[in-house]
């Protein structure tokens, strides 16, 4: 399997990474180089093999459903590029 230029544009859009038009072709080549190399996995007989979901067999831990942290509004927005009154500022999304 390989990607074409339209697929490169589509996945860049899905990944929300602006890709200038002049980068589409080089990226197509780079991705296809990697995809051609990972294609050797098609040789492996995986019939009846369950996909790995966890390397260490352990039951997912549960904890009590209680508040363990909070009142951290100042810390939460401390690294925000733009914020006001503990809200994040974004471009207008609703007309």
């Amino acid at each position: 399997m390989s990607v074409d230029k339209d697929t490169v544009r589509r996945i860049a859009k899905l990944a929300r990474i602006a890709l200038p038009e002049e980068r589409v072709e080089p990226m197509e080549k780079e991705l296809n180089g990697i995809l051609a190399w990972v294609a050797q996995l098609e040789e492996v007989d995986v019939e009846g093999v369950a996909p790995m979901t966890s390397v260490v067999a352990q039951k997912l831990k549960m904890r009590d459903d209680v508040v363990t942290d909070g009142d951290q509004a100042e810390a939460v927005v401390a690294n925000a590029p733009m914020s006001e009154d503990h809200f994040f500022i974004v471009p207008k999304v609703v007309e």
Partner: protein
Amino acid sequence: MSTPSSLTEFTLADARDAVAAKKISSTELTKAHIAAIEASRSLNAFVTETPDRALEMARASDARIAKGEARPLEGLPLAIKDLFCTKGVRTTAGSNILNNFIPPYESTVSQNLWDVGAVLLGKTNMDEFAMGSSNETSHFGPAINPWRARNSNSNLVPGGSSGGSAAAVSGYLALGATGTDTGGSIRQPAAVAGIVGLKPTYGRCSRWGTVAFASSLDQAGPMARTVRDAAILMRHMASVDPKDSTSVDVPVPDYEATLEGGVKELRVGIPKEYRIDGAPPEIDALWAKGAEWLKAQGAQIVDVSLPHTKYALPAYYIVAPAEASSNLARYDGVRFGLRAKDVRDITDLYEKSRAEGFGAEVKRRILIGTYVLSAGYYDAYYTRAQKVRALILRDFEEAYKHCDVLLTPATPGPAFAVGSQSDDPVAMYLNDVFTVTVNLAGLPGISVPAGLTAEGLPLGLQIIGKAFDEATVLRAGRAIEQAASFTAKPAPWWRAA
């Protein structure tokens, strides 16, 4: 205990004993390391130096020692990979997108080290988001390997992604350092920089507060100049943590106490699939020597097979980018990190912030990950890779019916020149051919310096163990270290006069 001519040449164990015995103070020890760091900026090992905090912590340590309240790592200066969040100290993950990120919290691994008295010297350089094998994808420029080939002035890479930590420890700028290892990022740089690097079993260390790359593979571990030092650091980095549900609740043993137990009757597996075409003959020769060393100390050498080894790297380059594309979705230019200016709307904000903030390798991996997880391709790529991963783990389980540990080369070659492998992503990925299987199977592995190439560059051997059997891995690593008696040091060409 041996006392070196310079305070920076102490091993961590000897420094610990000297500080505890009040032969040296933490302040003296810390000042010596700060001076070494300042004189070694040409190595670009640190992204952020924290001399003021280091001295403050050292003074507090000296006060505790005076009161007789010393803790296990009291007053010992360490370097922390810039992937571990440090409260109030900028944490970049080697990325422009986190250029100004100052965490309001501390990673569990680093907190564990401060809780036993360690001192923070600074944050070390690394490949961006730990994606790389040479430290060249760092936004802050490559860290440089203290080692150079004989009669050469070319700068070599320190490996990656924990390249700054490797350079700092190898260049005597810190007694030890933390690293993280997703596909080989502790063991590969350790090997090419002539130091020891241990990746523990997945779940041994908490991942909380460590910037995420590929969550099912990422593990923190120590980088140090001796196996003993790695054993000491490992014990204090590891913990079960309510903040990481994948951290495992198994007791953390005193690895140092069992270190000298020897390898008598230990069954050491030699996996034939780790002999690869095109590897320099020195790699095979060193591997054979390693087996002889262990045999001479009473180990039993067993030939084993790990038939799916060749599929590990391709499987990794599906699983890791897939997880990375999900983890890195959080960088949106809104809540933290870089935000693009002059944007039309919210989508434009996301797309431009991420385009400006991420480097080329990170973008490549996010796009690969997005593609393999997209509708119609998920089963062909991701599910298949996770099945292959299950087969790789099964290979190890079969092998461990016949042996207790495995001995392999650590890398397919020594350190290479800066810029020499950056044009071909797949060629760069092959640097992790001997280390990546261990991450896919969640197992512990250590790289120990074992010899020099004809050009005088360090090479490492790797010991791979059973899950949660770091004690045996360290014991076998110690046996290699003893037999190799690796005493070579890089000439300090980088030191400012």
